[in-house]
């Protein structure tokens, strides 16, 4: 029995896209704020409806909602909303059209959130791959330069290859399992001994998600892309889809590939360590701020993978806490990036933002707080994330991984110190434009949330724990 009510959020999202298209076609005086307003209310409605219909499944064998999926969808929509509110400042200040950005973002959200709810590998990966391929259009938003087109084209090539391979694997598994739903595929992968081709198909599903997450050694596109796109796209790609990919990864590990996970575990260890090291070292090699934080994201993904090596309740919980904290902090960082503007141009090179603390002390101070938070220092929120990570690894007696994580943090610390040095101690080269009040508002809200969660962490730790437990029973 199909419960169409469960698809209300998706319908709202489609409707939002439709309204945006209609406005774009027929309204001459459409400003960047127009599409932002439409998107904002649309996503708000979607969020509300998702929360209300948290346990409504469209068709239990294909599309299922539960507290776990609702949790992630809520976070994704909230992240998207925050990014949208920042993005409108960009479009307003540069006086460029925002239609493409907001519509593509809505479409991307549609596919990402749908992928989380699918309980069939074919549908799941169809949504995921289509959504990922759409990123090309997002990347090309307001981005016509030859230098930027080349990485985008490379990404497309790899994305197409990965997508094709993933879909093939998904369909082969479905065929061999006699159905694409998780139970059948899981049963196939639990056979002992598992055939090599079955193993490869199952493993490649994970590899595909790791590629999207930007985990090493599949990370090669991420820094270049994030560094070359416009700021709103960079912010979206850096912050929002990672939650969806993480959700999908947990679903796969819990319900699909658990049969071959013991075999895959050493590979996960290698990927985790590689991500941590590549992320930490790579951050030190960059002079572009966004590329640097792309590497920070790779590092965070590496830590998440390290926790998931031993897949259990506590490790899932800890990885989620850590990822949420990172995403929240990086959102703050990107908000600061919106403040780095000179003569109408957004700055992303470290050299350009030298000495910004002298004219924008609050912005600089906020960035400093976020950097210390990412390093896991108390009294900032990042400490909670790091505490969860190390606590879990110690409980698992995984001391080498702790060593790798902490060493990576030390190396990352060196990169952050470089930023601090440039912002605080180097001489100012450029004149910085006035910062939009909305940026300060976003920063204030972000800092407030961080402060509240630090003083009373049960909002983050306890209440979300319950939602996560529904997945891993």
């Amino acid at each position, binding site marked *: 029995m199909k419960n169409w009510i469960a698809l209300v959020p998706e319908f709202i999202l489609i409707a939002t896209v439709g309204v945006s298209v209609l406005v774009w076609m027929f309204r001459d005086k459409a400003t960047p704020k127009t599409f932002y307003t439409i998107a904002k209310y649309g996503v708000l409605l979607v969020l509300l409806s998702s929360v209300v219909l948290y346990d409504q499944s469209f068709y239990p064998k294909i599309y299922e909602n539960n507290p776990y999926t609702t949790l992630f969808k809520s976070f994704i929509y909230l992240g998207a909303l925050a990014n949208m509110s920042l993005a409108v400042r960009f479009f307003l200040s540069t006086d460029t059209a925002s239609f493409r950005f907001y519509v593509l973002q809505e479409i991307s959200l549609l596919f990402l959130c749908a992928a989380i709810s699918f309980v069939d590998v074919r549908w799941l990966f169809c949504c995921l791959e289509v959504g990922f391929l759409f990123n090309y259009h997002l990347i090309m938003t307001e981005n016509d330069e030859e230098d930027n087109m080349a990485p985008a084209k490379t990404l497309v090539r790899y994305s197409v290859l990965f997508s094709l391979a993933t879909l093939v694997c998904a369909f082969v598994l479905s065929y061999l399992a006699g159905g694409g739903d998780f139970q059948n595929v899981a049963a196939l992968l639990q056979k002992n001994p598992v055939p090599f081709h079955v193993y490869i198909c199952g493993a490649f599903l994970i590899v595909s998600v790791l590629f999207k997450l930007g985990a090493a050694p599949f990370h090669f596109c991420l820094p270049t892309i994030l560094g070359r796109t416009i700021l709103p796209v960079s912010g979206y790609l850096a912050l929002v889809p990672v939650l969806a990919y993480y959700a999908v990864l947990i679903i796969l590990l819990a319900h699909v590939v658990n049969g071959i996970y013991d075999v895959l575990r050493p590979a996960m260890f290698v990927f985790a360590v590689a991500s941590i090291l590549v992320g930490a070292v790579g951050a030190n090699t960059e002079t572009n701020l966004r590329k640097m934080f792309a590497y920070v994201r790779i590092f965070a993904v590496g830590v998440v993978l390290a926790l998931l090596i031993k897949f259990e309740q506590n490790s899932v919980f800890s990885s989620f806490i850590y990822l949420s904290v990172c995403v929240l902090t990086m959102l703050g960082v990107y908000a600061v990036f919106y403040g780095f503007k000179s003569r109408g141009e957004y700055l992303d090179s470290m050299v350009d933002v030298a000495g910004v603390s002298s004219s924008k002390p609050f912005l600089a101070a906020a960035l400093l707080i976020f950097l210390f938070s990412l390093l896991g220092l108390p009294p900032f929120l990042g400490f909670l994330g790091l505490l969860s990570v*190390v*606590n879990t690894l110690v409980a698992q007696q995984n001391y080498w991984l*702790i060593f790798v994580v902490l060493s990576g943090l030390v190396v990352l610390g060196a990169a952050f*110190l470089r930023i601090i040095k440039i912002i605080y101690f180097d001489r100012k080269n450029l004149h910085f434009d006035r910062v939009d009040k909305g940026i300060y508002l976003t920063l204030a809200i972000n800092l407030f949330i961080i402060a509240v969660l630090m003083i009373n*962490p*049960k909002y983050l730790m*306890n209440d979300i724990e319950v939602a996560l437990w529904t997945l891993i029973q």
Partner: protein
Amino acid sequence: MSDIPYLLIMTVLPLCGAVMVLLAQDDEKTNGRNVISVSMLTVWGSLVFILLALSHVDSSYGHMQLLEKYVWLENPEITLTLGVDAFSLLLILAVNMAALIGMWGGRHEKGCQKSCMVFALLFLSLITGLFVAADIMAFFIFFAALLFPLFMLIGVFGEVKRRAALFRFTFYSFCGVLLFFWVLVILYNHDGANLLISKISQLTLSSKTEFMVWLGIFAALLSRIPIWPFHGWIAAVYVGIKNPLIFILANMMPLTGIYGLMRFVPESVPVSMVFLATGLEIIAVITMLFIALIALINVDFKFKIFSFMMVYYIFYLMAAFFPTSQFMMNVGYSLFAFMIIFAALEVLVSYQEDECEAQKLLPEGILRLMPRLSVVFTFMIMAGIGMPLSAMFVNNFVLISALLTYNFWTGVCAVSSLAVVCVALLLEIRRRKHEVKFSVEQVSAVRDLSKKDVCFMATMMLVLILSLINPLWFIRG
């Protein structure tokens, strides 16, 4: 448990002060006076609460008192416990008084007065929290959190020229924090709950784990203390700070490491720790000798003050390894006087340097033009080198005696280092009182300490002398 949460109030009060400073009016009219007044009032308020807490503490009782528990996390279960004894209260008192002296001395410094005071009060709040932390998690939170305001104070307001040294220092401290964090989580997981510091030595750990835990604790706490071979760039950072308040606050950082070692290291050293303790003694002695000898040849007085601090800090650190805790109060009293002396010296030197810069004079013979400052300066130097003008004298006597008893040659090296660094300070008196011909204009232009300054310093001198006459005058029991 006490009814009034003295410890929470003591910890949070400087933070509230920081907020008040942010809200205080600061324009050309007030010229920073409001900011200074609010800051100093905050510290005076803290002092009142500290003395109130002292009146409730029994100095003869060795365990933590005035305990306060606060539930922070439920999963993992973490309850933060605050508690003090007379020793930690003495340190808090010392730190606050030193900060007060620093604020008084730095009140005429120009540039970012407000932000500087905010971070200074934040630092004061966090260091107070460190001294009242009774469990490992609370200790670590404050231990790590100190890095942020310290970095801001030194980097932004300290006018340090050698930036590379600052970054190395921050990086090095950060490594220590992470190491400590690792050990902390191991201990937490071993017990399944947040552990009181005093219970660490009672844990039954495997020999390998015990060794790793203690190695981690040692290395982490030592990262705060400029031990050899890391003393060079730490010295470069601290010595480069011009603002006296920031110099004083920055030089409190090694105190956190020493305090941690005094709290964590048990009376009877576990077998796995014997090797570590011996290694630490050797490094401590080498560092003391090194720093003392370099102080002797260095002409920068700030370096001499820094060396004086570090040599004494390491001397107190050695006391942490006595196989008995009966000397802890002696360390506390001595540190109390020591912090006041050091802060006063820094303020006085800073004043002299400012005058030299303003009047384009060399420091040689400057004290001849400032008779009031000369008297106070000489008093502080005399008290600092161990003359019986403060609690340092008797308590250092006890500590030197204990050190010589437990390890004779270590004691001899430590005492030699103390002597050398004191000689270095005395050489400075000689230099600054050297006979130099000044012109009439120069003589009249140089400003001596004002009457207010003299009264303030006289109060501090009186506190020091009172601490000699009756070290227990502010403690019951």
